[in-house]
């Protein structure tokens, strides 16, 4: 199948640039339930990391700890920079228009002219010209998530946390928004942590995919994907990574990763 020729690219982690976000031996208990066990993770500046794992394994808990909305029961979190989060859905304020929501991300700007021009830029970037004064409930799901991305990317954050940002969308819109996200990140580079249950999404977008185990979540496998971003879904390394992740999660049989070095 020529699969083995591709495998060298899918190996263990290697040192990145200066870490932006570091977890050291993080565990999290909710009462008697252990959700995260001894997770250590260093995310480099400008890196795009995807966290995948079975549902209910603690992905979102991990993200909440990264964002500071939750504290680890033991271990430590080192956060170097300002971060913004994009939620599954309905993270926009429904009582504010597209422009007002985006302006939230630009609250540090005092000069009204500067603010207007920055908002204009963001609206153009997400191609929603003409919808400036619409409210979220007047937009489609895909448009709403684009506005969320714009709000998070406006201004001076360094880290973008994405909590299953496209999971509420239909398949085609999801594929389209992946390209959109890749394009936006090209324009405004950020360190990104993406939590997703969409394995293709992880393989297509991320520099590094971290596969978590069932609860209590531990890091089961790290894959590095070297094909430069943006990538297509059908590129060999993306397909291969998807296979490996599926096998790691026990969804496809071992046959699928014949030739894969463990």
């Amino acid at each position: 199948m020529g699969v083995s020729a591709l495998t060298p690219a899918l190996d263990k982690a290697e040192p990145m640039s200066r870490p932006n976000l570091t977890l050291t031996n993080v565990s999290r208990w909710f009462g008697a339930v252990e959700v995260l066990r001894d997770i250590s993770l260093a995310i480099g500046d400008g890196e795009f990391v995807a966290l995948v794992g079975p549902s209910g394994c603690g992905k979102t808990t991990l993200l909440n700890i990264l964002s500071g909305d939750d504290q680890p029961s033991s271990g430590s979190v080192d956060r170097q920079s300002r971060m913004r989060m994009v939620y599954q859905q309905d993270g926009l304020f429904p009582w504010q228009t597209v422009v007002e929501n985006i302006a939230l991300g630009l609250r540090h700007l005092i000069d009204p002219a500067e603010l207007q021009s920055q908002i204009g830029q963001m609206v153009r970037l997400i191609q929603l010209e003409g919808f400036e004064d619409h409210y979220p409930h007047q937009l489609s799901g895909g448009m709403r998530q684009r506005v969320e991305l714009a709000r998070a990317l406006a201004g001076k954050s360094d880290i973008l946390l994405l909590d299953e940002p496209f999971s509420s969308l239909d398949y085609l819109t999801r594929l389209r928004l992946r390209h959109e996200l890749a394009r936006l990140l090209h324009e405004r580079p950020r360190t990104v942590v993406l939590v997703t249950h969409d394995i293709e999404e992880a393989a297509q977008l991320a520099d590094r995919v971290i596969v978590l185990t069932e609860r209590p979540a531990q890091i089961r496998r790290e894959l590095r994907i070297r094909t430069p971003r943006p990538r297509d879904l059908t590129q060999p390394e993306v397909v291969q990574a998807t296979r490996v992740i599926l096998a790691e999660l026990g969804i496809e049989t071992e046959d699928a990763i014949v030739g894969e070095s463990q």
Partner: protein
Amino acid sequence: MGDAATIFLIFLAVYFPVALATIAAVGSIPAVYFRVARAYGLTGVEGLSKVTLPAIMPQIITTLRVTAGLAWLIDVAAEMVAGRDGLGFAVMDSRNGLRTDLLIVQMIVIGLIGVTMDRVLMRLTRIPSVQWGYQR
């Protein structure tokens, strides 16, 4: 004394529904909004005026519509029992004087005032920034 007693009665009838509805409305604000507010630096008074209040506005307007009708009914009833003037008093006066014609007009006026109050409050639901609360 009539007015003070009426006002107190209206207060008693309206305060608790409004307070309870407000508490329930605040309690049902999705946690995401507060997290977003914190992430974008909307805290304290700003958090209250730009997040909490707009988030409960649609429910508050509905509660106001319900309780305004209630207040109006109590007002008229209190005037009937203890008033020395007002529409409620006039209704009783017409009844005692066997002026059915006046009585009917007064009933219609009471109804119209009630409907008008509701219409005015209903206009609040057309404010663009609360529309979201009525269309899901």
